[in-house]
């Protein structure tokens, strides 16, 4: 059997990295290694040439100023990212990039920031910030624990697949109990904390989808997740 290898793209790590987003990339990197797969992280910042043969895309959250910096570049990249999403490349977009993976972000002042429309969602700025520990239940991943901190309120189209249902916290908009959105192997969510370290099942799913797409097979290793398990239990019992 030849050595499997994955190329992980970090989308805009310089401008969109505000909530421990490195934790997500690092978790995929380390868990791939533990599954016996060599992995390489490639940074993509505005103006860079988009690298070929990418197997996983991970993007993080940013401040409003970070979103402005990447906005034009993201529009140029939109056709490439849409093509990868159609082609079942697994992607994880957190918070700021989750919003921009949708159709648009309309700020509370009425300005429209265009998204790239991979996810069938719309986001509206609000005066309230939804902040705190959050638990979301997903059929695919079980309980997802994380932390949310956003003032954008996101609404899904009727047909949009959600990531999960909020059991504690606010989620997409604080009203309909939905959290996150999916399309093919693309996951968008407000959850950080960081997301993947305490939700290794999602990290493994991204790795699995990438391997299935590239090699048609994936044999998971038996990884001791007791630290993550303890950390999850603590997080689930903390105040909002």
């Amino acid at each position, binding site marked *: 059997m030849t050595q499997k290898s994955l190329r992980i793209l970090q989308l805009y790590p310089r401008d969109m990295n505000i909530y421990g987003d490195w934790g997500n990339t690092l978790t995929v990197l380390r868990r791939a290694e533990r599954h016996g797969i060599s992995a390489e992280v490639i940074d993509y910042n505005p103006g860079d040439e988009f690298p070929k043969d990418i197997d996983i895309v991970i993007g993080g959250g940013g*401040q409003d100023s970070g979103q402005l910096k990447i906005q034009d570049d993201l529009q140029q990249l939109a056709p490439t990212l849409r093509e990868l999403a159609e082609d079942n490349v697994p992607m994880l977009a957190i918070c700021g990039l989750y919003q921009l993976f949708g159709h648009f972000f309309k700020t509370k002042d009425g300005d429209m920031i265009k998204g790239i429309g991979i996810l069938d969602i719309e986001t509206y700025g609000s005066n309230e910030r939804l902040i705190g520990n959050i638990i979301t239940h997903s059929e695919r991943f079980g309980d997802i624990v994380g932390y949310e901190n956003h003032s954008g309120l996101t609404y899904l189209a009727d047909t949009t697949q959600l990531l999960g249902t909020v059991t504690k916290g606010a989620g997409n908009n604080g009203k309909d109990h939905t959290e996150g959105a999916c399309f093919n192997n693309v996951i968008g969510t407000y959850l950080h904390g960081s997301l993947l370290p305490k939700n290794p099942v999602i990290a493994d799913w991204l790795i699995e989808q990438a391997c299935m797409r590239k090699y048609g097979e994936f044999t998971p290793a038996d990884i001791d997740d007791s630290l993550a398990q303890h950390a999850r239990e603590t997080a689930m019992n*903390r105040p909002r």
Partner: protein
Amino acid sequence: MRTQSTILVGKTIKQLMRLRGGGSALPGLVAERIDPGFMQRTLAQLPRGVVLISGTNGKTTTTKMVVELLESQGLTVFTNRTGSNFTRGVTAALLGSVNALGKLDADIAVLELDEAHAVHFVRRVKPTYSLFLNVLRDQLDRFGEIDHTARLLKTIAEATTDGIVINRDDPRIGSTAFYGDVSAKTVRSYGVDAQLLKLFPSDDSMREADAVVTTTQSTILNNDTSLVSVDGQSAVIRYADTDHSVSLKLKGVYNVQNAVGAVALTRLIMQADLDESAMFTALESVEPAFGRGETIIVDGQPLELVLVKNPSGFRLSLSSFDSADTAIMIAINDNYADGRDMSWLWDVDFESLVQQGVAMVSGVRAYDMALRLDYDKVQFDTVNPSLSAALKQFLSTHSDSPKRIFCTYTAMLALRKELSKIAEVEVIS
């Protein structure tokens, strides 16, 4: 009459709280409720006014430095030492310092205030001078974004009457958008020479391969104070074309940077009356503030408490303190004062601990920390969320070596309390 009854009630609660052993801000809270004008009336008596120190990191240590530098100039200084840097913490400290008639025996007040509380404070008391240290990623669960934090600090700058001092190397504070249109009579800057900037990476450069720090925003204002060289705890500070060599007791490059800020502020306050040699003598003898690199002797071995509360502070602490031959414990809590979001731990690089490992991981979020270390391939011996049990085991297992505990704010307070049972620990009230 009102002042006197406020003081009586406040002082009584303060004493009761001390007997109970806790809560530095409660008497202040009560005094604020029964007499909202107490703080501004009392501070308004001060002949040289009020100095405010704010920013994300370094407030407590810098405040301590400024207090001691001003005392070296013959001033009597009132300050809030407890690190309870809310307005009610200031009120509580005032209650402890005024006499029964409400007279505060001081020339000047030097106060550290958290960004959000400083905004409330300046609505009631206009600072005479203020010093702005930095804006870093910290407690985003409270402030939302660091650009928002910068706006809070700007409100303080705008309320300051006589003079502000800015860290010109901070991407936000050092920009003309921050200080260009303030009404204070004087704006002074401090900073480090260009070749030293790489020692002070900002959050903006955190994930850049070669931590390129741009100096384009850095404006050196007239009468600037600069750090021109640093080697461990020795530094050369330059102003008015003259170099001054100093050797600090404080560890950490960030404390050298804070010292430059403290000198710049002292120069501004004292103007032509400055006694330079007294100022530098005082600077060299400043000891660490409680929990900020403070050393406690336990069983004949030094134990350092290093407060960590955000990515840049933790990164700088790891790079500033040599870990060789030192047993390391890390204690992470997630109470309100620590910040509830654990994301920040993932923005700290722990690879410098790979070689020697970590002896003990503790605090409410011990397992988050252990998981973080695991993904950086740092070995750790024990994980125990209970601070008292973890401390006990850490001390007994490493009784023969120097020790260091990196801890969040509430973990630090709890550990100091535990340590005070077995060692000499300065009481802060």
